[in-house]
């Protein structure tokens, strides 16, 4: 699988890992003139001047602080610390042309991955045809045997996804990760836009920026569409693990924006394969659960018996067709980082199409040749645990110490299926206004897709910025910040 990349552009990727100079710059051309679609913004920056930008940056931080736009860190020393969302005031701009490609690529990917999940949990044609190695699936931690042969409403597994895109040294958009479980970030996309509009209204004037704030409405429509009793009187709830979860802000944000109840596991009860909300007027049947609780905690009768976050009987109610779960359980196997390498094949297999968005070359640690190569070149690799996200369980080769590399080598040899490696890619950079200076920082992009009666991609997304100079890690848990992202109408 990897060979094709090594002989083509991928081999060059490996060789370019020395310095940030080689990364694609979103804002500047190679001659340090701003790119065409950034020229109006550049004029605004110059007109605004140092003083005004500094006060605007302060206003933005203050606004986020007062509104309580926070996320929670799970660091050892600072367990459960609430942090204000770090925000850079200069927007990132995506042209209509680029967006058309991104949108088509994402829709194609989600369609294919959804068919893949339906196949994996029913006939497993793709394994029998030898396109994906069966052992990859059967050894995957996130294959959910409990849901085999269950038909979810409208055959949709992945209703909500937040696919991470990066741009490589040539400026091509690549898929870095498919987040198909319970991806976060959409509330920050909206909050960023609200703040940006308030802080830099004049910047919008030379652009036709597409709107993103209707996301909760699209989400509600998609959720209601799934209701087994029909959309008209559908009772929808957001299921949260509770106030101590890192994304609690987002859970309450979405519930509030959609005007539905924000429930914890203890607010729901199952009777006769139906799910009910405990209300002051008695039990009220629930049709759709947008759950932000991970699979393994969802139902103590089926998954982890010690879970107090879930609802006993939920999976049976789902199996009986009395409730829709969003996303469906078991989607994790499709965003397993080892399965990720096969997504181009999956697209070709189910859709007979050429993948629109390329993936990052990926080394399988179960493959002896790949593994030997990676272990010899660890300082040039990003090594990831297949089942973790948020920047946890990851080794950034160039920034690692020999001790860390030895530790990861040992872990890989002990459990090869649990790891993959990718060459370090110098992800693209953008200017940021930091401490009174314009500085370049690396960033990525997470657009959000909603699969209801059709697949919608809201024109925008969350741009995450590595606030530390030279860093390639953008996760908010690792000190990342964000920018408003403008998709242009034309």
């Amino acid at each position, binding site marked *: 699988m990897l060979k094709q990349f090594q002989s083509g552009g991928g081999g060059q990727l490996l060789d370019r890992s020395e310095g940030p100079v080689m990364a694609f710059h979103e804002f500047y051309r190679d001659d340090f003139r701003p790119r065409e679609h950034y020229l109006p913004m550049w004029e605004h920056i110059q007109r605004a001047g140092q003083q005004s930008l500094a006060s605007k940056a302060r206003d933005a931080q203050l606004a986020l602080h007062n509104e309580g736009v926070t996320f929670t860190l799970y660091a050892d020393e600072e367990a459960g610390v609430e942090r204000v969302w770090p925000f850079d005031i200069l927007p990132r701009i995506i042209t209509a042309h680029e967006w058309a490609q991104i949108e088509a690529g994402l829709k194609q990917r989600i369609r294919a991955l959804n068919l893949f999940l339906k196949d994996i949990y029913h006939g497993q044609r793709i394994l029998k045809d030898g396109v994906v190695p069966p052992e990859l699936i059967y050894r995957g931690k996130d294959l959910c045997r409990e849901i085999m042969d269950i038909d979810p409403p409208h055959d949709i597994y992945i209703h909500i996804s937040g696919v991470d895109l990066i741009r490589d040294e040539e400026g091509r958009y690549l898929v870095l990760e498919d987040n198909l479980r319970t991806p976060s970030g959409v509330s920050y996309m909206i909050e960023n836009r609200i703040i940006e509009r308030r802080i830099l209204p004049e910047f919008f004037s030379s652009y036709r920026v597409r709107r993103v704030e209707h996301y909760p409405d699209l989400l509600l429509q998609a959720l209601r569409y799934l209701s087994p009793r029909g959309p008209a009187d559908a009772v929808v709830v957001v299921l949260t693990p509770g106030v101590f979860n890192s994304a609690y802000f987002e859970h309450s944000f979405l519930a509030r924006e959609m005007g539905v*109840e924000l429930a914890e596991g203890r607010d729901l*009860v199952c*009777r*006769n394969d*139906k799910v009910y909300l*405990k209300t002051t*007027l008695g*039990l009220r049947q629930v049709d759709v659960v947008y759950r932000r609780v991970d699979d393994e905690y969802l139902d103590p009768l089926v998954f982890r018996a010690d879970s107090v976050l879930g609802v006993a009987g939920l999976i049976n109610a789902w199996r009986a067709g009395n409730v829709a779960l969003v996303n469906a359980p078991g989607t994790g196997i499709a965003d397993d980082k080892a399965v990720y390498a096969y997504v181009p094949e999956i697209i070709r297999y189910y859709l007979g199409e050429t993948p629109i968005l390329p993936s990052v070359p990926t080394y399988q640690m179960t493959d002896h040749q790949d593994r030997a190569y990676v272990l010899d070149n660890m300082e040039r690799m990003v090594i990831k645990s297949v089942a973790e996200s948020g920047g946890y369980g990851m080794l950034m080769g160039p920034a690692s110490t020999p001790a860390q590399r030895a530790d990861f080598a040992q872990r890989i040899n002990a459990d090869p299926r649990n790891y993959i490696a990718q060459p370090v890619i110098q992800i693209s950079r953008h200017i940021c206004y930091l401490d009174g200076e314009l500085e370049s920082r690396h960033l990525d992009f997470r657009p959000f897709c909603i699969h209801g009666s059709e697949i919608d991609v809201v024109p925008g997304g969350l741009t995450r910025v590595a606030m530390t100079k030279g860093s390639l890690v953008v996760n908010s848990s690792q000190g990342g910040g964000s920018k408003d992202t403008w998709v242009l109408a034309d």
Partner: protein
Amino acid sequence: MLSRIAESLYWMTRHLERADNTARVLDINVVHMLESDEGVTEEAQWRPLLTIVGADEGFEDIYPDGRVTVQRVIHLLTQDPNNPGCIHTSLRLARENARAARDRISNAMWETLNEFWLAADRSLRVKLPPWQAAELYAFVHREVATFQGLTQSTMMRGQEHGFAVLGSLHERADMTARILDVRYHLLLPDLSLVGSPLDYYQWGALLKSLSGFDAYRRRYQNGIRPIDVVEFVMLNPDFPRSLIYCVNGLERALARIGYRPNGETEGAMQALREQLRDIQAGEIIERGLHEYLDDLLERLADFGAALQTDYFDAYLGDAS
């Protein structure tokens, strides 16, 4: 609405009301003790407070010698973690419940209560010197009043507001009944007399601990007579801490929330109403005020249990 949220709203206001009431009886006693009354011991002056808030037994557990002193009572009712009803704990619980119902109260309410809690917690983490007690109680009154004002002016009048009102008025009725019961029992008035100077101060303290002194004076020009105090505190529908006022308010809040069909709350509400229907102060005193109030407190407790059954514990029998 969610049962869990309804319960949180109810306890948010109930704990706040309790903190406010406890602060008020303490405050009045602290001021009252500045001048001494003949023949009234420290014990006689402070033990009633323990009885009012139901902390008699707890006190014996913590202070086996049973000696009642100013400092001990102030500490126990204000900040002793061994007393689950102390002001410090009540405020913590009020804030925790508000946090759980965060998206159902206004931003202004949440921010006020949160800042109030943070400030109160800072001063109550260390043992409060007695001379600072009055200042703290004044702070508690001010902040609770601010919160109640914001509830009045910024909260939607839906079920949420209904449960917030229930918590507050339920606690207030309970406290009024207890204050009257304990004080009256101690004063053992002679109905034929207009009060002695001592009675004037004692009854005055009772009215003040219900924020009703001035209003009473305007309403009754004949000095402070026990029978009038009983009438005012129990049966005046315009006095916001009277029992009848609380019962009327509970009834209105429930009408907005809606009774559960075949629930227990409607019956419990009627029982409370029945207790106060067509009755005169003189009649109550003749029949025995203490017995009467005991009965009333029991009905208030039944009312709380009914709310729990009908609204807070989801009734699983509904599923079919």
